[in-house]
């Protein structure tokens, strides 16, 4: 045995910490159920401070548990691409603003990582991305669990080859966006009273003027705008993937076998 060679089986990736994953997912689901079904404080009277605490703690904590569970299974090749995805999320989010686009496009990096390195890396990228973004814009912080979910769903879509066809990618984006919108709505409502950009608030205002409760109006708005945003993001990522040289894809075992 040479001192420079290593056994073929060794690899830096290990199994995920299943307990942490299960705990994280349970916490996120429990938080969502608590917020939507029990609706602790009806928003007509108070401002739902308990709900705010629960959504902050539950979604942030759940995201953190997920990341902790996923970390051991990340190989170096997924590790180097995750910071890139996070930086892309933030930089393209800003670029989209400067180009005057009406959609956020702030999940391009998350979806790209998910497609190249798999659902686990995608979920972790989404969660960490929002945590880092929280350093520049604290309002991103409570949405960490939603961002992780988007990374996870995008990775699953890639696993089943949905990024090979544009219309399939668009459909996957629609579903992912809808799920993302559903999860994000209670956070927006209970943390910030559904305040967002003027554009999204105009949509909420329309539903409110029709008599919807705030949570219902925000959920409908989330379904609408997040779906649109994720359709565009998924199609853009599919187009970028199409233009990538094989050499760039070959370094990712997940994308290679896709």
């Amino acid at each position, binding site marked *: 045995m040479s001192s*420079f*060679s290593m056994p*073929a089986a060794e690899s830096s990736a290990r199994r995920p910490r299943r307990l942490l994953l299960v705990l994280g997912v349970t916490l996120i689901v429990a938080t969502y159920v608590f917020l939507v079904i029990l609706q602790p404080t009806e928003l007509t009277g108070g401002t739902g401070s308990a709900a705010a605490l629960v959504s902050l703690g539950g979604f942030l904590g759940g995201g953190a548990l997920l990341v902790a569970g996923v970390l051991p299974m990340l190989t170096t090749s997924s590790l180097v691409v995750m910071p890139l995805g996070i930086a892309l999320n933030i930089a393209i989010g800003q670029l989209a603003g400067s180009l005057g686009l009406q959609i956020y496009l702030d999940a391009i990096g998350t979806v790209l990582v998910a497609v190249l390195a798999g659902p686990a890396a995608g979920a972790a990228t989404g969660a960490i991305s929002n945590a880092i973004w929280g350093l520049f814009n604290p309002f991103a912080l409570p949405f960490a669990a939603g961002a992780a979910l988007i990374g996870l769903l995008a990775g699953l879509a890639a696993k089943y080859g949905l990024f090979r066809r544009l219309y399939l990618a668009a459909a996957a984006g629609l579903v992912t966006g809808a799920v993302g919108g559903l999860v994000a709505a209670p956070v927006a409502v209970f943390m910030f009273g559904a305040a967002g950009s003027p554009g999204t608030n105009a949509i909420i205002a329309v539903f409110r003027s029709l008599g919807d409760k705030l949570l219902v109006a925000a959920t409908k708005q989330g379904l609408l705008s997040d779906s649109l945003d994720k359709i565009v993001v998924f199609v853009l990522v599919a187009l970028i993937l199409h233009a990538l040289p094989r050499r760039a894809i*070959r370094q990712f075992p997940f994308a290679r076998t896709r």
Partner: protein
Amino acid sequence: MIRLEVDAFSYDGTEQVLVGPVLQVHPGDHVVVTGASGSGKTTLLRLLAGLTGSDAGAAFTGSITLDDERLDFAGSEQDPRIDAARWSEQVAYVAQGAWGQLSMMSATVGEEIAFGPANRGVPAGQLRARVDAVAESLGLTPLLERDPRRLSGGQLQRTLIAAAMVQRSRVLVLDEPFQGLDDDAAAEVAAALEVLRREGTGIVVSAPILPAPILPAPILPAPMLPAPIPAEAAPRSARVLALAGGRPVFDGSLADARTAGLDRFGIGTMGDPPAIGEAPERPEPAAAGAALLELRNVSFRYPQQHGAPHGTGLRGVGFSVSSGEIIALRGPNGSGKSTLLQHLNGLLRADSGSIAVDGTPIRSQPTGSFAAVVGYLFQDTDQQLFERTVLREVAYGPRSIGRRRPDAERRAAAALDEVGLQAVSQAHPYELGFVQRRLVALASLLATGPRLWALDEPTAGLDAPAREVMAALLRAHARGGGAVVLATHDAAFAETVAHRSLWLDDGRIVTQGGTEHG
């Protein structure tokens, strides 16, 4: 101390990239691996660095011997897999392209150099001592607290060398370390390598052209001054391994290599003019005062960023270029060459004075609207390649100025023919080598068909054949009634190709005249 024998190497089991080269490095050796683009230099260096590509489907047959340990490879599954961490303790490797070699998580040069030992758990006190020692030898001590992302090219390259060498590896392998560096920066890096070599490190460097020999004088004074040695130099004792098409065509001393007629393999020598015959003929006098480009008293200042201006501006620059002319912009780094060039198509807008291209003054039109008249070649061409085939890439220019797809593709095919890339028109631009990617960018410019070309360091990093293609295309463009303005450090190229040179210093023109005065 290390010996690499390559029987054969191929990616994806297709074409053989390397056949037969043997490379041996001893302490204090300086070996230059040279060859034209696509000759297999990078692959050879990566093998030395222990990157046999087995995880990416490459097949390597041959052996690597480090001291008395011999690893044999048969291109099969049972081949040894090299442990990169342990290998790098003996053989340090600095690849092409600086950004991929930075961890990006270090706020200071010191942290970046310490990245490797910190990963290995070296205690803090020892960590500082090791970083200080390697920084001292490479003249990096004053830079230890600087942000690695804000260094000059030469400083960055030396930082990467330090980060790779902090383990005190005995062999240092560098893939085209001088690419994209100007003369001063290249001299700075060459001096740092010479220090390491004199400390006993075996140095292996790849280069598209043969370096000039260093005079045997003491170098690298404590505060690094621009050394009075030729850029990209190698010591007199350097050995040369020349490759052509993956096969070794020369193995011997640098002095012998310079007289071995390697130019028939597309391997030129530093400082040689491009071989395209006689000096440029004066252009025909342009039709009654129709200057293609006219600058009058142009001044420009970069906006202040974080308190410090981020580049030299321009101060009252005026000149004109008529059709048929090739003008070289010359001068030291930071004299304003690139700044001036970027005014010619509206990438930068003058604060005062006027610029007219083909009679149209540049005012507030979008930059993209000048693409039909002014073609711009960036120093870093990789920033524009984005299509999935070379043909589509080259057709993007004509398409974006409004030509229909069949017409654009016809023009693209013709342009690829002119730069000699017709064979790879269906390849992905990123599957090509550096030189070919630059030629793709040039073809893109040709296909769009602007009359004025603005070229930023067009010959940087090119091998001899590509440099000749560039020179020939420039002359043909001028003869056809176009005009060229090029910013360049390549004196031999400017003197052979340009009709006159404008010398810039600190944002103003200091001398105008024929190239023979330069």
